[in-house]
Protein backbone atom coordinates (compact mmCIF):
# COMPACT_ATOMS: atom_id res chain seq x y z
CA UNK A 1 0.00 0.00 0.00
CA UNK A 2 1.39 3.41 -0.97
CA UNK A 3 1.42 5.95 1.84
CA UNK A 4 0.95 9.37 0.26
CA UNK A 5 1.29 11.17 3.58
CA UNK A 6 5.00 10.26 3.72
CA UNK A 7 7.11 13.39 3.24
CA UNK A 8 4.04 15.63 3.25
CA UNK A 9 5.25 17.68 6.21
CA UNK A 10 8.66 18.35 4.63
CA UNK A 11 7.01 19.28 1.34
CA UNK A 12 4.57 21.61 3.11
CA UNK A 13 7.42 23.33 4.96
CA UNK A 14 9.42 23.68 1.73
CA UNK A 15 6.37 25.25 0.02
CA UNK A 16 5.77 27.71 2.86
CA UNK A 17 9.45 28.75 3.02
CA UNK A 18 9.81 29.14 -0.76
CA UNK A 19 6.56 31.10 -1.14
CA UNK A 20 7.53 33.37 1.76
CA UNK A 21 10.96 33.99 0.20
CA UNK A 22 9.27 34.62 -3.16
CA UNK A 23 6.90 37.19 -1.63
CA UNK A 24 9.81 38.97 0.06
CA UNK A 25 11.70 39.04 -3.26
CA UNK A 26 8.63 40.27 -5.16
CA UNK A 27 7.87 43.17 -2.87
CA UNK A 28 11.28 44.12 -1.43
CA UNK A 29 13.94 43.00 -3.92
CA UNK A 30 12.71 43.00 -7.52
CA UNK A 31 12.82 46.50 -9.02
CA UNK A 32 9.76 48.22 -10.44
CA UNK A 33 9.24 47.52 -14.12
CA UNK A 34 10.02 50.59 -16.24
CA UNK A 35 6.94 50.17 -18.47
CA UNK A 36 4.31 48.72 -16.18
CA UNK A 37 5.38 49.91 -12.75
CA UNK A 38 3.98 48.30 -9.60
CA UNK A 39 1.25 46.37 -11.42
CA UNK A 40 3.94 44.12 -12.96
CA UNK A 41 4.23 42.44 -9.51
CA UNK A 42 1.14 40.44 -10.51
CA UNK A 43 3.29 38.62 -13.07
CA UNK A 44 5.28 36.84 -10.36
CA UNK A 45 2.01 35.14 -9.40
CA UNK A 46 0.08 34.99 -12.66
CA UNK A 47 2.79 33.53 -14.94
CA UNK A 48 3.92 30.73 -12.54
CA UNK A 49 0.26 29.81 -11.94
CA UNK A 50 -0.38 29.57 -15.69
CA UNK A 51 2.83 27.59 -16.33
CA UNK A 52 2.24 25.13 -13.46
CA UNK A 53 -1.40 24.75 -14.46
CA UNK A 54 -0.43 23.80 -18.04
CA UNK A 55 2.30 21.45 -16.71
CA UNK A 56 -0.34 19.90 -14.42
CA UNK A 57 -2.61 19.15 -17.39
CA UNK A 58 0.31 17.49 -19.21
CA UNK A 59 1.20 15.56 -16.03
CA UNK A 60 -2.42 14.36 -15.82
CA UNK A 61 -2.04 12.96 -19.35
CA UNK A 62 1.26 11.26 -18.53
CA UNK A 63 -0.20 9.66 -15.39
CA UNK A 64 -3.20 8.51 -17.43
CA UNK A 65 -0.78 6.65 -19.73
CA UNK A 66 0.30 4.76 -16.58
CA UNK A 67 -3.32 3.74 -16.04
CA UNK A 68 -3.87 2.51 -19.59
CA UNK A 69 -0.56 0.61 -19.53
CA UNK A 70 -1.00 -1.09 -16.16
CA UNK A 71 -4.78 -1.11 -15.68
CA UNK A 72 -4.15 -0.05 -12.07
CA UNK A 73 -6.77 2.53 -11.08
CA UNK A 74 -4.39 4.24 -8.70
CA UNK A 75 -2.79 5.83 -11.80
CA UNK A 76 -6.18 7.14 -12.83
CA UNK A 77 -6.65 8.64 -9.37
CA UNK A 78 -3.21 10.31 -9.64
CA UNK A 79 -4.14 11.67 -13.06
CA UNK A 80 -7.51 12.89 -11.79
CA UNK A 81 -5.93 14.76 -8.86
CA UNK A 82 -3.22 16.27 -11.13
CA UNK A 83 -5.92 17.62 -13.50
CA UNK A 84 -8.12 18.76 -10.62
CA UNK A 85 -5.25 20.72 -9.08
CA UNK A 86 -4.23 22.13 -12.47
CA UNK A 87 -7.79 23.40 -12.98
CA UNK A 88 -7.72 25.19 -9.61
CA UNK A 89 -4.33 26.75 -10.43
CA UNK A 90 -5.56 27.61 -13.92
CA UNK A 91 -8.62 29.43 -12.58
CA UNK A 92 -6.39 31.36 -10.14
CA UNK A 93 -4.05 32.20 -13.05
CA UNK A 94 -6.95 33.33 -15.21
CA UNK A 95 -8.37 35.59 -12.49
CA UNK A 96 -4.96 37.11 -11.65
CA UNK A 97 -4.32 37.67 -15.37
CA UNK A 98 -7.68 39.32 -15.74
CA UNK A 99 -6.90 41.66 -12.85
CA UNK A 100 -3.57 42.53 -14.50
CA UNK A 101 -5.34 43.15 -17.84
CA UNK A 102 -7.78 45.55 -16.19
CA UNK A 103 -4.93 47.47 -14.56
CA UNK A 104 -2.73 47.49 -17.64
CA UNK A 105 -5.10 47.50 -20.62
CA UNK A 106 -8.24 48.86 -18.95
CA UNK A 107 -10.23 45.71 -19.84
CA UNK A 108 -10.93 42.59 -17.79
CA UNK A 109 -10.81 40.42 -20.88
CA UNK A 110 -9.87 40.84 -24.55
CA UNK A 111 -10.84 38.35 -27.21
CA UNK A 112 -8.20 39.33 -29.78
CA UNK A 113 -5.25 38.35 -27.58
CA UNK A 114 -4.09 34.84 -28.62
CA UNK A 115 -2.39 33.82 -25.34
CA UNK A 116 -5.43 34.68 -23.22
CA UNK A 117 -7.93 32.99 -25.51
CA UNK A 118 -5.79 29.87 -26.01
CA UNK A 119 -5.39 29.50 -22.23
CA UNK A 120 -9.17 29.85 -21.82
CA UNK A 121 -9.71 27.15 -24.48
CA UNK A 122 -7.36 24.76 -22.61
CA UNK A 123 -9.11 25.54 -19.32
CA UNK A 124 -12.58 25.00 -20.81
CA UNK A 125 -11.41 21.76 -22.41
CA UNK A 126 -10.27 20.42 -19.04
CA UNK A 127 -13.38 21.80 -17.34
CA UNK A 128 -15.30 19.14 -19.28
CA UNK A 129 -13.11 16.38 -17.79
CA UNK A 130 -15.06 16.05 -14.54
CA UNK A 131 -18.59 16.15 -16.04
CA UNK A 132 -17.45 13.60 -18.63
CA UNK A 133 -15.96 11.17 -16.14
CA UNK A 134 -18.80 11.41 -13.62
CA UNK A 135 -21.44 10.90 -16.31
CA UNK A 136 -20.14 7.32 -16.63
CA UNK A 137 -21.37 5.09 -13.83
CA UNK A 138 -19.24 1.99 -14.31
CA UNK A 139 -15.97 2.79 -12.43
CA UNK A 140 -13.73 0.80 -14.79
CA UNK A 141 -15.15 2.44 -17.92
CA UNK A 142 -15.11 5.81 -16.18
CA UNK A 143 -11.40 5.47 -15.44
CA UNK A 144 -10.59 4.25 -18.96
CA UNK A 145 -12.53 7.00 -20.74
CA UNK A 146 -11.11 9.63 -18.39
CA UNK A 147 -7.58 8.41 -19.12
CA UNK A 148 -8.10 8.57 -22.88
CA UNK A 149 -9.47 12.10 -22.51
CA UNK A 150 -6.58 13.15 -20.23
CA UNK A 151 -3.97 11.87 -22.72
CA UNK A 152 -5.60 13.50 -25.76
CA UNK A 153 -6.25 16.80 -24.01
CA UNK A 154 -2.80 16.68 -22.37
CA UNK A 155 -1.16 16.33 -25.79
CA UNK A 156 -3.20 19.30 -27.00
CA UNK A 157 -1.61 21.59 -24.36
CA UNK A 158 1.95 21.79 -25.81
CA UNK A 159 0.57 21.91 -29.36
CA UNK A 160 -1.63 24.83 -28.41
CA UNK A 161 1.30 26.54 -26.67
CA UNK A 162 3.57 26.14 -29.73
CA UNK A 163 0.85 27.37 -32.09
CA UNK A 164 0.41 30.56 -30.07
CA UNK A 165 4.18 31.09 -29.87
CA UNK A 166 4.47 30.72 -33.63
CA UNK A 167 1.72 33.29 -34.21
CA UNK A 168 3.01 36.51 -35.67
CA UNK A 169 1.25 39.14 -33.63
CA UNK A 170 2.42 39.26 -30.04
CA UNK A 171 0.77 41.60 -27.67
CA UNK A 172 0.95 39.52 -24.52
CA UNK A 173 4.16 40.38 -22.64
CA UNK A 174 6.84 37.66 -22.98
CA UNK A 175 8.24 37.14 -19.52
CA UNK A 176 10.20 34.01 -20.34
CA UNK A 177 11.52 32.84 -23.68
CA UNK A 178 13.62 29.86 -24.74
CA UNK A 179 16.57 32.22 -25.14
CA UNK A 180 16.58 33.03 -21.44
CA UNK A 181 13.93 35.70 -21.36
CA UNK A 182 14.06 39.44 -21.39
CA UNK A 183 14.13 39.93 -17.63
CA UNK A 184 17.01 41.57 -15.77
CA UNK A 185 18.86 39.34 -13.25
CA UNK A 186 17.00 40.38 -10.08
CA UNK A 187 13.60 40.00 -11.76
CA UNK A 188 14.60 36.64 -13.23
CA UNK A 189 15.69 35.34 -9.82
CA UNK A 190 12.40 36.52 -8.27
CA UNK A 191 10.44 34.94 -11.10
CA UNK A 192 12.18 31.56 -10.77
CA UNK A 193 11.80 31.50 -6.96
CA UNK A 194 8.08 32.26 -7.46
CA UNK A 195 7.85 29.51 -10.07
CA UNK A 196 9.49 27.00 -7.71
CA UNK A 197 7.19 28.13 -4.88
CA UNK A 198 4.05 27.61 -6.96
CA UNK A 199 5.38 24.26 -8.25
CA UNK A 200 6.02 23.12 -4.66
CA UNK A 201 2.53 24.27 -3.65
CA UNK A 202 1.07 22.26 -6.52
CA UNK A 203 3.04 19.17 -5.44
CA UNK A 204 2.02 19.66 -1.79
CA UNK A 205 -1.68 20.03 -2.57
CA UNK A 206 -1.53 17.05 -4.96
CA UNK A 207 0.04 14.93 -2.23
CA UNK A 208 -2.44 16.29 0.34
CA UNK A 209 -5.42 15.31 -1.82
CA UNK A 210 -3.90 11.93 -2.68
CA UNK A 211 -3.37 11.26 1.06
CA UNK A 212 -6.99 12.20 1.80
CA UNK A 213 -8.33 10.06 -1.05
CA UNK A 214 -6.13 7.13 -0.04
CA UNK A 215 -7.30 7.35 3.59
CA UNK A 216 -10.93 7.44 2.40
CA UNK A 217 -10.35 4.44 0.16
CA UNK A 218 -8.76 2.43 3.00
CA UNK A 219 -11.63 3.35 5.34
CA UNK A 220 -14.19 2.15 2.79
CA UNK A 221 -12.29 -1.13 2.34
CA UNK A 222 -12.16 -1.65 6.10
CA UNK A 223 -15.88 -0.93 6.42
CA UNK A 224 -16.67 -3.36 3.60
CA UNK A 225 -14.52 -6.07 5.15
CA UNK A 226 -15.99 -5.53 8.60
CA UNK A 227 -19.64 -4.82 7.89
CA UNK A 228 -20.27 -6.14 4.39
CA UNK A 229 -21.01 -4.56 1.01
CA UNK A 230 -24.34 -3.00 2.13
CA UNK A 231 -22.64 -0.90 4.83
CA UNK A 232 -20.62 1.04 2.26
CA UNK A 233 -22.37 4.08 0.82
CA UNK A 234 -22.22 4.56 -2.97
CA UNK A 235 -19.04 6.34 -3.94
CA UNK A 236 -20.73 9.22 -5.79
CA UNK A 237 -18.38 11.69 -7.42
CA UNK A 238 -15.01 10.25 -6.62
CA UNK A 239 -12.14 8.93 -8.71
CA UNK A 240 -10.85 6.80 -5.84
CA UNK A 241 -10.95 3.05 -6.49
CA UNK A 242 -13.48 1.49 -4.12
Amino acid at each position, binding site marked *: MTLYGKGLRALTLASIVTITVALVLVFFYAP*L*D*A*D*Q*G*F*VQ*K*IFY*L*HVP*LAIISLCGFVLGGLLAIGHLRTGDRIWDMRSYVAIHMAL*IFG*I*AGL*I*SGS*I*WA*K*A*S*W*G*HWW*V*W*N*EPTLVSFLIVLLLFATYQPLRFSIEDPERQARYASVFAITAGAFVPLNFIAVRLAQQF*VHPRVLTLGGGNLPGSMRLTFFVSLIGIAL*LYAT*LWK*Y*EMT*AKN*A*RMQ*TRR*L*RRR*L*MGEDAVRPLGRSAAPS
Partner: protein
Amino acid sequence: MITLATSPALAPGKAAPYVIAAYVVFLAIVLIYVAIMAKRLRSNERDLADLKREVEQRRSVEEEQRDRETVG
Protein backbone atom coordinates in the same frame (compact mmCIF):
# COMPACT_ATOMS: atom_id res chain seq x y z
CA MET B 1 -12.16 44.60 -31.54
CA ILE B 2 -10.16 46.19 -28.76
CA THR B 3 -6.79 47.57 -29.80
CA LEU B 4 -4.20 46.99 -27.13
CA ALA B 5 -1.37 49.35 -26.63
CA THR B 6 1.40 49.45 -24.08
CA SER B 7 -0.19 51.54 -21.39
CA PRO B 8 1.82 53.96 -19.28
CA ALA B 9 2.65 52.66 -15.80
CA LEU B 10 0.02 53.21 -13.14
CA ALA B 11 1.19 55.09 -10.07
CA PRO B 12 1.94 52.65 -7.18
CA GLY B 13 -1.03 54.08 -5.27
CA LYS B 14 -3.41 53.29 -8.11
CA ALA B 15 -1.82 49.93 -8.97
CA ALA B 16 -1.71 48.63 -5.37
CA PRO B 17 -5.42 47.60 -5.17
CA TYR B 18 -5.02 45.47 -8.31
CA VAL B 19 -1.85 43.80 -7.03
CA ILE B 20 -3.42 43.16 -3.61
CA ALA B 21 -6.60 41.82 -5.26
CA ALA B 22 -4.60 39.34 -7.39
CA TYR B 23 -2.68 37.96 -4.39
CA VAL B 24 -5.78 37.90 -2.13
CA VAL B 25 -7.81 36.00 -4.76
CA PHE B 26 -5.05 33.41 -5.00
CA LEU B 27 -4.87 33.06 -1.23
CA ALA B 28 -8.67 32.78 -1.01
CA ILE B 29 -8.74 30.01 -3.65
CA VAL B 30 -6.05 28.04 -1.79
CA LEU B 31 -7.83 28.52 1.55
CA ILE B 32 -11.21 27.45 0.12
CA TYR B 33 -9.55 24.34 -1.29
CA VAL B 34 -7.88 23.55 2.06
CA ALA B 35 -11.22 24.09 3.89
CA ILE B 36 -13.00 21.66 1.53
CA MET B 37 -10.24 19.10 2.06
CA ALA B 38 -10.41 19.59 5.85
CA LYS B 39 -14.18 18.93 5.72
CA ARG B 40 -13.57 15.68 3.83
CA LEU B 41 -10.88 14.65 6.31
CA ARG B 42 -13.28 15.28 9.23
CA SER B 43 -15.87 13.11 7.51
CA ASN B 44 -13.29 10.34 7.09
CA GLU B 45 -12.30 10.71 10.73
CA ARG B 46 -15.98 10.23 11.73
CA ASP B 47 -16.17 7.09 9.58
CA LEU B 48 -13.03 5.74 11.23
CA ALA B 49 -14.49 6.45 14.69
CA ASP B 50 -17.65 4.53 13.66
CA LEU B 51 -15.53 1.60 12.52
CA LYS B 52 -13.53 1.66 15.75
CA ARG B 53 -16.78 1.59 17.78
CA GLU B 54 -18.04 -1.32 15.67
CA VAL B 55 -14.81 -3.29 16.21
CA GLU B 56 -14.91 -2.67 19.98
CA GLN B 57 -18.57 -3.70 20.16
CA ARG B 58 -17.84 -6.93 18.31
CA ARG B 59 -14.85 -7.62 20.50
CA SER B 60 -16.84 -7.18 23.71
CA VAL B 61 -19.61 -9.46 22.36
CA GLU B 62 -16.99 -12.09 21.46
CA GLU B 63 -15.39 -11.84 24.91
CA GLU B 64 -18.77 -12.23 26.58
CA GLN B 65 -19.46 -15.34 24.48
CA ARG B 66 -16.04 -16.78 25.32
CA ASP B 67 -16.60 -16.14 29.04
CA ARG B 68 -19.99 -17.87 28.85
CA GLU B 69 -18.46 -20.87 27.05
CA THR B 70 -15.68 -21.09 29.67
CA VAL B 71 -18.15 -20.94 32.57
CA GLY B 72 -20.55 -23.39 30.83
